């Protein structure tokens, strides 16, 4: 792998950018690998990278039915944060954020991390009280959090309607300064390039049609490009987890919903923090290109259609305009949806599947992007050592039987 640096930029600039090497290979699948990862999204690519980098297992293939990073990794609103309530989640998501903070260096790829801060707004006395408890819990868990008042919010987001006549008056907020946004595609590309450099084969346009089972054990995958044998198989397919599990003969506590996001036309800088409003159900930030990037809650019924339904669009846009009345003048540019894997307690599943030889990374719901480094790191540990990483030991399938849920659904504000 040729390293990216200021000098390489200068050199390639002088060559009119015609001699940049390709970032990763497009190899034909080998007949067998130590590990096959299904799904070349952030979690699958990160799992492959950490298998190679942390555990010396580089005979790995990542297969995907489409192009890498083309699923939920390329469809989210790029927000990273670790403002969770329970100790298990706080430790896990803050580990992810700490890995994000170093990721551009680790992977020699600029993921454009911008820790501009995220404010969760409180619109009622009850929300203020719950928020105080939440901020305290975060501080006890060692995660940065501050409760701030309306004046400071008005100062940080001058165009936000903080007036008393607002439909949802802003009474205060919880600020995590280390939260922010990162370039979502770059995260997938960075992991892909670094994994490829360590020998991982990334095989795109190679849909998995079935799992190969021998003597009760999963020993490979049937793909559009023929069978591929594997010592171990990892599924990191988010909203399609139930479909793959059905091929292996078991069910998951997962329901797939479309989550929509959208952008406005680009405008001059108007918002340099991330805002999240539980009352309007909207979260919004401004991209480097100037577009307002925003989204809301899940669509209201199970879906595998990556497009979303219109009533939810209407709700989200109405919510944005409650927050920023001036946004009513903006043109709406693009809208899309990703299929999210929602579980009852809004916490992930990083565990061995009921079938030996198969490992599961799913259950991210609406919050998978921010978790990518930790999801990949702990999944790689699980696969390499056949025991859960301490940070992910609570995120088992068994919890649905024992009742040891980590119920972040109520904690994180928006359908998550």
């Amino acid at each position, binding site marked *: 792998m040729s390293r990216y640096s200021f000098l390489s930029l200068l050199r390639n600039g002088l060559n009119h950018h015609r001699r940049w090497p390709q970032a990763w290979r497009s190899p034909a699948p080998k007949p067998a690998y130590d590990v096959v990862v299904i799904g070349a999204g952030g979690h699958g690519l990160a799992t492959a990278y950490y298998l190679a980098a942390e555990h010396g297992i580089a005979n790995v293939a990542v297969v995907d039915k489409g192009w890498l990073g083309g699923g939920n990794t390329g469809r989210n609103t790029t927000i990273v944060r670790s403002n969770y309530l329970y100790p298990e989640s706080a430790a896990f998501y803050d580990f992810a954020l700490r890995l994000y903070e170093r990721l551009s260096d680790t992977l020699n790829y600029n993921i454009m991390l911008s820790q501009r801060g995220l404010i969760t707004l409180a619109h009622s006395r009850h929300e203020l009280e719950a928020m105080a408890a939440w901020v305290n819990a975060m501080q006890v868990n060692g995660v940065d959090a501050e409760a701030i008042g309306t004046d400071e919010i008005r100062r940080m987001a001058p165009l936000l309607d903080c007036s008393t006549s607002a439909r949802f008056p802003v009474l205060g907020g919880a600020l995590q300064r280390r939260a922010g946004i990162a370039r979502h595609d770059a995260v997938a590309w960075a992991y892909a390039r670094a994994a490829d450099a360590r020998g991982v084969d990334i095989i795109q346009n190679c849909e998995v049609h079935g799992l190969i089972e021998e003597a009760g054990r999963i020993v490979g995958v049937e793909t559009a490009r023929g069978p591929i044998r594997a010592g171990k198989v990892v599924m990191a397919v988010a909203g399609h987890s*139930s*479909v793959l599990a059905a091929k292996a003969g078991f*069910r998951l506590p997962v329901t797939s919903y479309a989550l929509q996001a959208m952008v406005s036309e680009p405008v001059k800088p108007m918002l340099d923090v991330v805002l999240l409003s539980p009352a309007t159900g909207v979260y919004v930030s401004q991209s480097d290109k100037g577009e307002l990037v925003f989204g809301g809650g899940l669509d209201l019924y199970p*879906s595998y259609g990556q497009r979303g339904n219109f009533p939810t669009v209407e709700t989200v846009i109405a919510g944005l305009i409650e927050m920023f009345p001036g946004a009513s003048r903006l043109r709406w540019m693009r809208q899309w949806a990703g299929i999210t894997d929602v579980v009852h307690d809004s916490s992930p599943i990083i565990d061995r599947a009921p079938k030996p030889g198969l490992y599961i990374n799913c259950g991210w719901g609406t919050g998978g992007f921010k978790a990518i480094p930790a999801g990949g790191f702990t999944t790689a540990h699980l696969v390499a050592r056949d025991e859960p990483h301490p940070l992910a030991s609570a995120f088992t399938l068994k919890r649905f039987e024992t009742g040891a849920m980590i119920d972040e659904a109520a904690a994180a504000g928006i359908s998550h």
Partner: protein
Amino acid sequence: MLLIDCPWCGPRDEIEFVCGGESHIVRPAPEVDDAAWADYMFMRTNPKGRHAERWGHVHGCGQWFSLVRDTVTHEISAVYRFDQPRPAERD
């Protein structure tokens, strides 16, 4: 926007309804083990394709019923009351 044919009210916009998830889940006897109870409580078929699910006409007559909907195209192929069995599939 879905047009849902409520068995009591006729066709109405989806915004009058709420989706209540998978239909035909049978509650096991209380003495079953934890695994069977977890299967009943949390495990879902979640198919990509036709899905029998419960809907409530919450901003209309208030009644609940079942329908069969394709989770990719959202085409509704059958609507039926809770006292009726799932209709035979026809393509």
